[in-house]
């Protein structure tokens, strides 16, 4: 899994049927200090994450489909956890 910050959301009326009802969020990968690393990705939200939150993103299709409750859905990433805002992340870096 990777750490990411939720930076936005996407609205799509026409999408693959396995994605119907799915919430799509824009997730900016970050390092342990919260600094941006790499490009913003789209992930389906399985935990009710919101803007600005630090989240855990799984980058693997089978896991993402399972998190969405749609095994076999054409997705490659899903938000599967929200890092506790106060002390959810400790690092020595």
């Amino acid at each position, binding site marked *: 899994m990777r750490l990411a910050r*939720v*930076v*936005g*959301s*996407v*609205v*799509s*009326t*026409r*999408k*693959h049927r*396995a*994605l119907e009802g799915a919430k*799509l969020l*824009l997730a900016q990968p970050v390092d342990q200090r919260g600094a941006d690393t790499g*490009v*913003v*990705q*789209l*992930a389906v939200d399985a935990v009710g994450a*919101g*803007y*600005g939150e630090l989240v855990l993103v799984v980058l693997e*299709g089978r896991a*993402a*489909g399972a998190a969405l409750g749609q095994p*076999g*859905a*054409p*997705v*490659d*990433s899903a938000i599967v956890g929200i890092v506790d805002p106060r002390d959810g992340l400790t690092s020595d870096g």
Partner: protein
Amino acid sequence: MHLAHVLGTVVATIKDPGLVGRALLLVQPLSPDREAVGRPLVAVDSVGAGIGEDVFFVRGREAALPFLPVSVPTDAAITGICDHWTTGDRSPLERRRAAVSTGARKGGR
């Protein structure tokens, strides 16, 4: 999954049987600020997207999933058309409202 803009279409008469009858679209991956990210690529369309539309696409082995049980050899598939996206999670109006309410009760979210 990534945001992208549909730049064009690709026509290929001779192709893998799994690709027959499928629309092949040339897409440019985008950042949320609409800047091009990386180089354009060819994706198989699963939702009826067209030139000029903003879409999102899935990469890797999951790209073949929309077309099962047909075995489609693709590493990129368009799985949705974007109506719009928001960064900052709020429209300008909502942002103003939030600013007002934050001012009212100091230390709000």
